[in-house]
């Protein structure tokens, strides 16, 4: 085991290119996220935000370049990759809770099967996390019985149960009814305050201003702007960003 120095970035993306057939979705992406940083990614539909997010735990493979998490290059498909994914929490737009398992079983499956925790210990920890996201009373229900906001909070608890080093969120609130958006954003802001390293694809400006240290603006597979939330929202540098902000602000 080599000691990982504290200035190793949590995520390092170097010269990554990704194609879907002939479509160039990620163009020479370079990105370093230090530990503890909260990064919000935004940009028009189809600009490659989800793909960037999914490349970080190799749900999508890349065509060239390199991705490293906490100093470890992403392994090929197999056991080592599964181990790395256990350290990277992911929250999906559509929640993707395991439909055949109760909420508490959703949360404890990974700790029991991957982390080899005892059932009781996993359950105790799982209930603690469900209390934290405010749905402890829903523990025995099935995902379909919960509201969207509750499901997404359960999905966050499921990811946290693995004690991840970094959390990825791909539009965690865009499938939710408006009145449920805040309960999810609250949980995320709490995580950010505790120093979790986070990459959040989201157009929620309030969240970005409050919790983000850094905003990436993507267009056509490129990172067009990389700045603080204040700079980005108040005085964006590029025409494309101005144009984009004009569109999301009028809605």
């Amino acid at each position, binding site marked *: 085991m080599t000691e990982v120095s504290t200035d190793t970035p949590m995520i390092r993306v170097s010269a990554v290119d990704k194609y879907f057939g002939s479509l160039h979705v990620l163009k020479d992406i370079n990105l370093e996220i230090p530990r503890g940083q909260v990064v919000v990614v935004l940009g028009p539909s189809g600009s490659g935000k989800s793909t960037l997010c999914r490349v970080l*735990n190799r*749900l999508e493979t890349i065509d060239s370049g390199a991705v490293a998490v906490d100093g470890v290059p992403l392994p090929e*498909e197999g*056991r080592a990759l*599964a*181990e790395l*994914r*256990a*350290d*990277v*929490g*992911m929250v*999906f737009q*559509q929640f*993707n*809770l*395991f*439909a*055949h398992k109760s909420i508490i079983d959703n949360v404890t*499956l*990974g700790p029991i*099967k*991957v982390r080899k925790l005892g059932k009781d210990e996993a359950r105790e920890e799982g209930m603690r996390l469900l209390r934290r996201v405010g749905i402890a009373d829903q523990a025995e229900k*099935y995902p379909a019985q919960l509201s969207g906001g509750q499901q997404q909070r359960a*999905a966050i608890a*499921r*990811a946290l149960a*693995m004690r991840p080093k970094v959390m990825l969120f791909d539009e965690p609130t865009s499938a939710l009814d408006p009145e449920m958006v805040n309960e999810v954003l609250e949980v995320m802001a709490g995580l950010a305050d505790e120093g979790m390293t986070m990459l959040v694809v989201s157009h929620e400006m309030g969240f970005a201003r409050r919790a983000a240290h850094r905003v990436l603006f993507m267009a056509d597979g490129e990172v067009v702007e990389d700045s603080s939330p204040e700079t980005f929202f108040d005085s964006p540098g590029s025409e494309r960003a101005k144009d984009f902000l004009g569109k999301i602000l009028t809605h």
Partner: protein
Amino acid sequence: MQVLIDNYHLYLRGLGTTLQICLYAGLLTLVVGTFIAGCRVAPLTPLRAFGTAWVTVFRNCPLAVVLFFMAFGIPALGINASYFVFGTIGLALYTSAFVCEAIRSGINAVSPGQAEAARSVGLGFGQTLRLVILPQAVRSIIPPLGSVMIAMIKNSAIAGAFGIGGDLYAVGIRQSSAQGEEIIPVLLGVALGYLIITIPAGLLLGYVERKVAIAR
């Protein structure tokens, strides 16, 4: 009909042998078919290629040819066992292609987000399949799988025709041609024997379908 009454013990034993063939072949084909289905959805290209080749061969080869190979090809290679063993294995291998496809289509009916969530929690391929995908796929696997199994029970007659000996089909042949009994009652007896297996199998299938439909 006197022939059936006089020889009922032959028919009963035939029924027992056919049941045995179906039981062993059924268990074996479930194991092999599930394994091949796993190969077909695996992230490794060689495994997928192997699974595809397996299904292509066994789905497109007539059962009689597979059984012919088991009856005469395998012994010619110097491997010896009773034809009961070879016939049962041949039937199971042939059926495994259909079992595989029933399972695979069930797997494909589960939303891909489920597998992505499982993998991103750190579950390996086998765990993802076993703990997350298959339990959700069961519901859509059962009906086609049941049809495959019932087809297999009927196909066991072809294995009988190759000379497993003593199964329902073989009893019918011996009674009618070797012992010169009247053909119609003999065939009725044989048909009745198969119905005694397949009809309860169909009822069981319907019961299981209803059972998995509510469980959730």
